[in-house]
């Protein structure tokens, strides 16, 4: 991979190492709060939840996005990367930050959950760790943008390859959206953690966090979508239905995924109802690129299926090469994306949200979307990249398919019951429930079933790690290089709007000012909105 193999491999190995630790923690949490186990000390429960969330929300997807970004950068642009030292420095910053945050959580210094909503405050080391990891990812953003700009300069008039275009869109999205949590930690939480301020503006902190909280999911989603658009059609033996559609999708994600975060604050009284409505409308707009993607990917798969001899209305589906991990994973991912997207539409509706707000439904939703639809694509990306990184074929292709199926089944068994008990009113983030209480007794069976699903996911994670480790021992063979899908009509040149980000970024900033400006200003100028902090660390 043009000299980037070690870098990419380091990111993926670190990401899956973190994943391997965090998944059993998740299964343990589900077990101990289910009727299958006696209650445990909530302190340990919340440590585990904080560690699980921090590892899988901040560290794991960031490392995957960075590693995949480097892989795309080197292979799609077809030349060695520059700034390798910076890239390694960024990697070690993320690792150091992750270690710092996780050690603090393990020691009981920050059971603040991964959303760390003030006025809860933990040890400053936890926030330093998160901040360090975020700053490491900022270096990656700089590298991606710099490669994008240099390639365009060296190739005037040529379209930037779709994979690199999308990677840069993801980097720019993360650049803008990570500012919210960065500002929250720097200006509100750390001064309080150091004891410089006695009080903390919890409302402002939540608003700043919402700036990051929703768009971060689209940053996680980017590698999955890039694989769907640029790797899947090729793997299925067909062509991408439309290169333009891909570009429009990534641009719409860039523009609309950020100025919508207040939909996480529907029950926050300090935000005006008008802004909640505004953010609801713009959240609805994010469904557009998702629907475009489902259409384009299905069309691309149909092309592949028909090229492979499939006939009739649905015959092309059976003709697809289902033994290829990327094809299987993409189909399973689209199913979970559809289900999770539907529950997301309920979450984003101002009125319906009040029924499910802060219930286990929400946990079910984001596990299905992120843990299911997105993470299964991370597995598929790893299976595509591993032979190219090691020069050896994947070990045990049957186990690979079993791994993808167990992840899919496990995730549905975990999350569908969560949706059900959420509608029954079970709150999220609770360490234990008294299921002997008649009011909760009907939830017991659902909770037990979902706890079993957790262990199916652990089995799947073990299979994944086993296959990847074993794939370092298979005999060296000639592995074809990573190939990107050709579009049905490959663009020879593109209009400026589909080949760059300058005006789009202005639109992003303008929308942010329009949708966030007033609520932010209100907090900054209103006096007396701060409350005493509530430290949770053990003394």
């Amino acid at each position, binding site marked *: 991979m043009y000299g980037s193999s070690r870098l990419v491999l380091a990111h993926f190995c670190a990401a899956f190492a973190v994943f391997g630790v965090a998944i059993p923690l998740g299964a343990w949490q589900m077990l101990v709060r289910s009727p299958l186990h006696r209650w445990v000390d909530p302190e340990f429960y919340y440590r585990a939840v904080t560690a699980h969330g921090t590892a899988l929300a901040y560290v794991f997807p960031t490392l995957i996005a960075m590693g995949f970004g480097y892989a795309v950068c080197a292979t799609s642009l077809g030349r060695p990367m520059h700034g390798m030292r910076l890239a390694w420095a960024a990697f070690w910053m993320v690792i150091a930050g992750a270690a710092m945050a996780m050690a603090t959580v393990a020691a009981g210094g920050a059971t603040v959950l991964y959303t760390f909503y003030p006025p809860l405050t933990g040890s400053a080391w936890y926030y330093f760790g998160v901040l360090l990891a975020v700053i490491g990812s900022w270096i990656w953003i700089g590298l991606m943008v710099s490669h994008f700009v240099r390639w365009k300069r060296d190739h005037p008039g040529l379209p930037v390859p779709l994979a690199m275009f999308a990677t840069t869109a993801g980097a720019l999205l993360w650049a803008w959206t990570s500012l919210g949590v960065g500002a929250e930690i720097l200006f509100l939480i750390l001064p309080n953690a150091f004891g410089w301020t006695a009080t903390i503006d919890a409302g402002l902190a939540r608003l700043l966090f919402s700036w990051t909280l929703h768009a971060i999911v689209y940053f996680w989603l980017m590698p999955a979508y890039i694989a769907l658009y640029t790797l899947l059609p090729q793997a299925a033996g067909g062509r991408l239905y439309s290169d333009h559609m891909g570009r429009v999708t990534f641009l719409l994600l860039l523009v609309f995924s950020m100025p919508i975060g207040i939909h996480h604050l529907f029950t926050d009284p300090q935000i*005006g*109802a008008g*802004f909640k409505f*505004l953010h609801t409308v713009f959240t609805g*707009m994010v469904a557009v690129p998702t629907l475009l993607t489902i259409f384009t990917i299905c069309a691309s798969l149909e092309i592949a299926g028909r090229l492979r001899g499939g006939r009739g209305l649905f015959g092309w589906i059976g003709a697809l090469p289902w033994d290829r991990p990327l094809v299987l994973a993409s189909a399973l991912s689209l199913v979970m994306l559809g289900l999770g997207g539907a529950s997301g539409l309920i979450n984003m509706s101002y009125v319906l949200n009040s029924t499910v707000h802060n219930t286990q439904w929400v946990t079910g939703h984001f596990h299905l979307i992120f843990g299911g639809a997105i993470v299964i694509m991370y597995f598929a990306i790893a299976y595509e990249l591993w032979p190219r990184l090691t020069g050896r074929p994947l070990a045990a292709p049957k186990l690979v398919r079993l791994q993808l199926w167990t992840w899919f089944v496990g995730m549905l068994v975990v999350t569908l019951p969560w949706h059900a008990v959420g509608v029954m009113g079970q709150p999220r983030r609770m360490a234990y429930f008294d299921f002997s*209480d008649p009011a909760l007794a009907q939830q017991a069976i659902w909770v037990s079933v979902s706890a079993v699903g957790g262990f199916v996911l652990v089995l799947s994670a073990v299979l994944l790690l086993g296959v990847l480790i074993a794939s370092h021992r298979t005999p060296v063979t000639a592995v074809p290089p990573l190939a990107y899908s050709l579009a049905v009509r490959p663009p020879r040149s593109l209009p*400026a709007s589909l080949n760059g980000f300058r005006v789009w970024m202005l*639109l992003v900033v303008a929308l942010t000012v*329009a949708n966030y400006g007033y609520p932010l200003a*209100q907090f900054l100028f209103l006096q007396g909105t701060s409350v005493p902090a509530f430290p949770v660390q053990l003394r």
Partner: protein
Amino acid sequence: MTDEARPGTFDPRFRNWIAGTLILFLVSVAVGFVWLPSAQQGAGARELWTAICRAAGLPGTSDAASSPVTGQPSSTVAWTVATRELMTRGDSAKGAAIATTCGNCHGANGISADAAIPNLAGQSVASLYKQLEDYKSGKRNPAVMGVYVDPLSKDQLLDLATHFASLPNPLAGAATPSGSVDPGARNLIELGSPLRGIASCAACHGPLGFTPGAPDLRAQQRPYLEEQMQAFKAGIRHNDISEQMRSVSRALTSDEIAKLAAYYSSFAPVTR
């Protein structure tokens, strides 16, 4: 591609995208800030501006929007940041000088000899101060205490609270209750009873957590505790700011109240 553009030139598509986004924004603003709030019941055309302000998160400025306040607050004390900061400014020595009268009933060391009179030693400044001010303002029945607190200023009340808070905590050497604890009482204390709307006692009165103004109940006098919970239940005592003690006590049976009082008083205070 027929519509190729040279790099660096402005692409007319941008105009369409920006115009489309702007229209979406303006329509959303019109619906969210004008139409929906003004269509709400009670918002007539004259109050359109008020409705817009409310949608933006600003309190209304129109007189018509404000409804007359009925009823009285349960206490004149509010746990604002300013009040909580005030709680750190009392003078214990001055308080001790005033406290000579108090000792007659509450004990010189803050441990009462009479089971109907509460122990004060080692309680938080906030919980002691709130009761003193409530007696003074009449929010808590001042029949007995009124005559003592009326002549005192707010600063003196604070000094007094600081003095009793500084006395040795009788719980310093107290162990968990000896003998068997009633499992029903323990459940109420640790978990509450969500179905009946009863929050866990320990979440406010310790040891799970302490909310401002909530006293530590361990080693409190049993008859006193029982009498106070019954008074909350009957609505005779009503100086709990958010009515939480009245709500909880109403939901408790008299038997449960007796068991809770027994539980808390079973911590043996260490008198010095």
